[in-house]
């Protein structure tokens, strides 16, 4: 139960049975994350007043504490007192018949967004044909890892940073081996670290003190680092590939972990198909610099591990900044694949912040300024042009450039139809939407 959620809450959200927030909407952080896990979530329940400090909530004059049980229905938005009995879905033989049809008639592949071996396995059971987006940052939040991550962020020089990163290397490698194994024979696109570093640090006094004592530093050190990392507009700040440009050792560690994991899998005869994705690229030069570095690190690891076989690791980029789409012919010179991150592409094309859109979106829909929420259904006239142009320009340089989409739109039937039309090779969506996307992809192919 939160006013709103942020990535810090990830652990709590993952262990929660359901998520209820008083602000936000269908595409806010809580909703997006919950959807990926198939977790029930009601976001933006404005009648609910949440007092996070007192651990109390008030709904229509009634007060509830952590001892009370509430039932929330994610499909209707209803909030009920007490535990309401549920029924689990039974997937019938008819369902698998329909899924067989989709394979027969669909031409686009459907991948999934998954960050853990468990998610990957579940999506595979639903028929996912690969992972289109594996976010590595979620791996840093779990349990002890966050401490090593924070140590790395607090480090004042490269040597200290590298030391902290060495602690993260084995856990990342283990995660990747798990995911490659779950997805053997299918491609897995791994996105290098994307969020700004401040998201990994605690913001309240108590947690900051806790962190300081765990890491054996003064409280002021933590506090100052948090202050130093503060940005007025983090969405457009020091994140994505910009982190890798300033702190290449983070990229080195992640690429090492991926390459080592692929080698480990190959040795066990597990067919790992890794694709390394560099996020938030806006210029060809960014991708040239970082792509070259990725390839150098891969070669180094191969040599260190004395591995002589082929790894076939692709290196590509996310197209989520309009400039990258506009200059896709140059960007694709350094890319094996493009993945359109249409969440950010929509934010930056419209100039809307996804997390703040709910203050004005209802009016925009009512006045028919927008036909629908552009974060739910791809705006084909505007943002779609950038996608189409990105595909065309990209393939003008590299005719076999693999193109896909990994935003929330990858699970929306209308947007999928558009993806088919502009010639994408795959869409990627949250595990629970995989069957929907497969059906929509088949319908798009049949309707064309």
């Amino acid at each position, binding site marked *: 139960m939160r006013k709103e959620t942020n990535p810090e809450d990830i652990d709590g959200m993952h262990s929660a049975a359901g998520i209820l927030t008083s602000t936000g909407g269908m595409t806010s952080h809580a909703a997006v994350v919950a959807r990926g896990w198939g977790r029930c979530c009601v976001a933006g329940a404005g009648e609910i007043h949440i007092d996070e400090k007192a651990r109390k909530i008030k*709904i229509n004059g009634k007060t509830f504490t952590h001892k009370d049980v509430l039932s929330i229905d*994610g499909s209707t938005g209803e909030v009920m007192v007490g535990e309401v009995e549920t029924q689990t879905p039974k997937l019938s033989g*008819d369902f698998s018949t*329909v899924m067989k049809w989709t394979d027969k008639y669909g031409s686009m592949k459907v991948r999934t967004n998954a960050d853990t071996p468990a998610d990957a396995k579940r999506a595979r059971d639903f028929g996912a044909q690969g992972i289109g987006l594996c976010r590595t940052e979620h791996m840093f939040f779990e349990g002890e890892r966050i401490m090593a991550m924070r140590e790395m962020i607090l480090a004042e020089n490269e040597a200290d940073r590298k030391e902290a990163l060495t602690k993260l290397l084995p856990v990342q490698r283990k995660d990747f081996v798990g995911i490659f194994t779950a997805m053997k024979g299918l491609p897995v696109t791994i996105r290098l670290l994307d969020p700004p570093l401040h998201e990994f640090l605690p913001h309240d006094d108590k947690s900051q003190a806790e962190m300081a004592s765990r890491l054996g530093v003064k409280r002021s050190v933590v506090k100052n680092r948090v202050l130093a990392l503060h940005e007025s507009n983090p969405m457009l700040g020091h994140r994505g590939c910009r982190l890798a440009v300033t702190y290449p050792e983070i990229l080195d560690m992640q690429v090492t972990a991926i390459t080592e994991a692929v080698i480990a899998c190959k040795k066990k005869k597990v067919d790992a198909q890794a694709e390394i994705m560099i996020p938030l690229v806006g210029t060809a030069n960014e991708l040239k610099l970082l792509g070259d570095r990725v390839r150098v690190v891969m070669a180094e690891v191969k040599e260190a591990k004395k591995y002589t076989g082929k790894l076939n690791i692709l290196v590509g980029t996310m197209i989520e900044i309009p400039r990258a789409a506009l200059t896709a012919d140059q960007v694709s010179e350094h890319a094996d694949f493009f993945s359109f991150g249409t969440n950010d592409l929509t934010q930056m094309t419209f100039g809307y912040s996804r997390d703040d859109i709910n203050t004005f979106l209802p009016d925009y829909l009512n006045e028919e300024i927008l036909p629908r929420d552009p974060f739910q259904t791809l705006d084909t006239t505007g943002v779609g042009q950038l996608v189409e142009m990105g595909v065309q320009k990209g393939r003008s340089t590299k005719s076999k450039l693999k193109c896909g989409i990994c935003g929330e739109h990858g699970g929306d039937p209308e947007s999928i139809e558009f993806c088919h039309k502009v010639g994408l090779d795959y869409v990627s969506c949250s595990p629970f939407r995989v069957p*929907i996307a497969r059906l929509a992809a*088949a319908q798009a192919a049949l309707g064309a």
Partner: protein
Amino acid sequence: MAKKVAKKASRAPKMTYYFGKGKTEGKNDQKQLLGGKGMNLAEMTRIGLPVPPGFTITTEVCDLYYKNKKKLPKGLMDAVNKNVKMLEKELGKKFGDTKLPLLVSVRSGAAVSMPGMMNTILNLGLNDASVVGLANATGNERFAYDAYRRLINMFGDVVCGVGHEYFEHAFDRIKAKYHAKEDNDVPLEGMIALCESYKKVFRKHYGKPFPQDPIKQLELAVEAVFASWMQMRAIRYRQVENITGLLGTAVNVQSMVFGNMGDDSGTGVAFTRDPSTGENKFYGEFLINAQGEDVVAGIRTPQPVAEMTKWNKKIYDQLLKIKDKLEKHYRDVQDIEFTIEKGKLYMLQTRNGKRTGAAAVKIACDMVKEKLIKEKEGVMRIPAGDLTQLLLPSFSPSAKAKAKKTGGLLSVCQRRLGLLSASSPLLRLRLSIVRLRAKKCCSCGKKPTPKTSTACTRRLAS
């Protein structure tokens, strides 16, 4: 200016489409022009189903009505008169007749279904003379006066803006006078007195007497249906449902059949397959001795359609045959409405049935197996987004109902609640399927003033 409009109207295309034994003019690709209801009435007539004859006034006429400053276009009433003559001839009945009077229903019907959003008038054609005719024809005087008072009430309320409550008060006075607890306890004299007092209420609040000329009644009713296209709730419904690009509503004028003519009469609604599970089983409910609106009002509880065998096996078997014929013809699940008048079955409506995600999957697979549709069509038939319903756990409906009953519901998106209400289980099911299928949430009809927008919960995790 007026001349110009008249000239335009005279060049207007065909305004009415007849359906009946003599001829059926509508075709099954004219949904935009005839509305869903009008097109399907024509189609059912064409394939030989028992449909009470009538005619449809096109959506283009509705468009002209609005372009013509909310006046019926010239030439319309001539066309209507011609169609009424055809109806009279086919049925051997006459408007305003004292022996065999013609009575009609007047209903809206746009190209996209908008349940309950626009106006309907029943029993039109009754007046002081034809009420006697109806009594003679049916041998049931009380029934005739009951029908008449229902018309005055409905016509007053829907066409002339006379508040329903004025009629209610008058009814209460009559009930008190005859010591009647329920509407049905009022004797014949009471019903006759009620008609007189309803006419007074009508005159008092409308300023003019209740129109005795059936053609005048029809003209006013058609206008009222057109006007209801732009009433607030209809506009809001179209906003919420993202319905755009329609010319307007069509008007269906259809000869009346009565489900309340005694214990050999009845009315019902049904799906050709179970819309919640998809099972290939005739699924619906009916009420003996009742009109359609009694089912909606929920005063009495309808029986499952399977129990009809005990009441009238012949009708049940006929319905099963019609069900198969409709599915073969439309190659999809149909949602039908029917009425039985004195042991004779009439079909009043058919349309593609809304269904849950689970039902959509089962129905598509079954219909492919039955060779009713091809595999590719099966793929296209399932709304992809509705698969969500199959993949996530849900609250068991009974447990949820119980929680709500005990006041456990704390907060909910108020989307569409209040627009529609229904007490019949089948109608509730229809509504719940409509809601299940609703793509977006937070499209409460209300404009989001700060208060209402915060009172709204958004739907998620789908």
